[in-house]
């Protein structure tokens, strides 16, 4: 049995009268790809928002690597080793692709604040090489100096993934990485996810596309009405009648 890297304990979160998360408990094992599935409005994105410090939970704890994450600022959580790919790509539209990837690389190397005014960006060859390597992996190396804002939506998503990967996070959160993608792009993304899976990086992936989920996940948890109703290997989940009823409805498979 491997180590638990992220532990969510009894987390509650309400928006007004709406209970988004109730008694949420979840353990993520190190080195695994953990998929979270569930119907719309089940609280999947809320859960990620709590993990990265975007939302403060009403009660409960989130422990990462043995350290309490509640009350920490988003940048501290990132520096602790959690990176996130958002549902709508959050990139730097006014900067070049290279700069988009160099910025997170600097964050990893230099920490949350460094005043390096008298160094030239063009002299930072280490960081540049690293960024170029990732951009090659992701297939965007040809557009190194174009502005990220002019990319297609699919490319923006892949760029954001590159921005997270360059930080070599201990835990990578992916919020529907293939939503709105054509089948061809989805397959490309699956290949990519499989490739980085070999690196042993822990990942939580939220996904609607069961094809993606069953291709990449080691472990699946089903979230419904703010709580985990089932957890297990892909085969266990496929066979669970409870899940079929709550979410899959059988027809999807």
């Amino acid at each position: 049995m491997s180590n638990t890297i992220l532990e969510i304990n009894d987390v509650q979160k309400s928006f007004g009268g709406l209970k988004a998360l109730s008694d949420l408990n979840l353990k993520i094992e190190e080195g695994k790809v953990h998929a979270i599935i569930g119907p719309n409005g089940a609280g999947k994105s809320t859960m990620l928002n709590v993990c990265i410090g975007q939302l403060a939970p009403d009660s409960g704890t989130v422990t990462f690597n043995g350290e309490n994450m509640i009350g920490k600022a988003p940048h501290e959580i990132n520096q602790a080793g959690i990176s996130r790919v958002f549902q709508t790509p959050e990139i730097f539209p006014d900067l070049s692709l290279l700069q988009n990837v160099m910025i997170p690389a600097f964050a990893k190397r230099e920490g949350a604040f460094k005043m390096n005014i008298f160094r030239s960006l063009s002299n930072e060859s280490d960081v540049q090489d690293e960024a170029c390597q990732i951009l090659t992996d992701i297939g965007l190396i040809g557009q190194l100096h174009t502005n990220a804002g002019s990319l297609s939506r699919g490319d923006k998503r892949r760029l954001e993934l590159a921005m997270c990967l360059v930080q070599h996070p201990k835990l990578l959160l992916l919020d529907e990485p293939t939503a709105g993608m054509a089948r061809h792009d989805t397959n490309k993304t699956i290949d990519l996810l499989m490739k980085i899976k070999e690196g042993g990086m822990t990942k939580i992936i939220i996904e609607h596309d069961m094809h993606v989920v069953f291709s990449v996940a080691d472990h699946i948890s089903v979230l419904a009405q703010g709580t985990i109703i089932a957890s297990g290997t892909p085969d266990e989940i496929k066979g669970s009648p409870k899940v079929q009823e709550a979410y899959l409805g059988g027809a999807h498979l």
Partner: protein
Amino acid sequence: MKTPTIKQDMLVMLIFSVVILTMPLWLEPLGANYPDLLQKFAIFGIFAVGYNILFGLTGYLSFGHAAFLGIGSYTAVWSLKLLTMNILPALLFSVLMSGLFALLIGFITLRRSGIYFSILTLAFAQMFYNLAYSVLTPITNGETGLQLARDDARVIDRLFSEAGEGLPSTDFFGLAMSGYSGFYICAVLLIIAFFISQRIFHSPFGTKLRAIKSNQTRMKYTGYSTRPYLLTAFVISGMYAGLAGGLMAATDPLAGAERMQWTASGEVVLMTILGGVGTLIGPLLGVGIIKYFENIFSALNEQALHQAFAFMPDWLANIMVFLTSPFVGEGWHLTLGALFVLIVVFLPGGIMQGIDLIKKRFSSPSKNSKTEHTSSEARLEKAPENGQ
């Protein structure tokens, strides 16, 4: 955009220095080579270059930078009064003092962004302005403005010589601050200021500032504490404003509160925008154009207009004079306002955008339409979603 290499940067610096230092020569045909105007170019150049570090890189629109200009001026005059007529300590103190105030004001105002930040900076500048006229009169000398007097202490100067007859004048170790030597001192400071700004623009630090402008949320989730970055940029630009204010006092030892009025902040915003926000050289172009035309236009009067249109038939000349006279002399501000509107409507990227467009049109006409398309697309996406 690709970041230029150090070699390219140094080349730019060399060309820039030559252009600035030879200004008295090449501005002669334009009739703008007299020292007063040249000094103004350099001083407002420093102000705008510094302002651009905040507004151009981070996108935070401050309406309070005139306060730092004023603080710089007052500090410099006090140094000239109490210590020495040498401008070196005066400038050092101006930069330090405005840096301190920028640290304090920035620490408070940067808790908010967007229009809230603009209003907070505006509120601070107005407080300084109002106080300078009322309670702070012992320091600012109220409406008269702070001036030198013959019997000022000037402790350091007194160590070396007795007070002379009449008002002493400012100098830099013997170099007079008036006339061309004054311009060259300002010009050298402008070159240094520009050099620092270029380094910031092309450093990882500057790129991070632009990333904050582009998407601050992403910056936070990428592991950056954004506020120290913003505060550093704010303080640096406040120090630039302080230096400019100090130089104003060094070239003309008088500091008045009107220098702190928010319309003065508006002026530096205008210069920056006109030239091109976020470009290195743009703000300087803006300064040059505005200060030059201010000089020319405000000196014109109806008589001069009649002479200018003398080649036309009388009736046409009269119409032309009638149409143009509200825009010159006292009406220079009308021209300025109209220019402002036209620039923002048609060239939001300022003159630098215009130059880019022209360059593209000449280099590859086929590629042109495509790039324009993408840039307008990018702007649409950037447009904030209001009222949510």
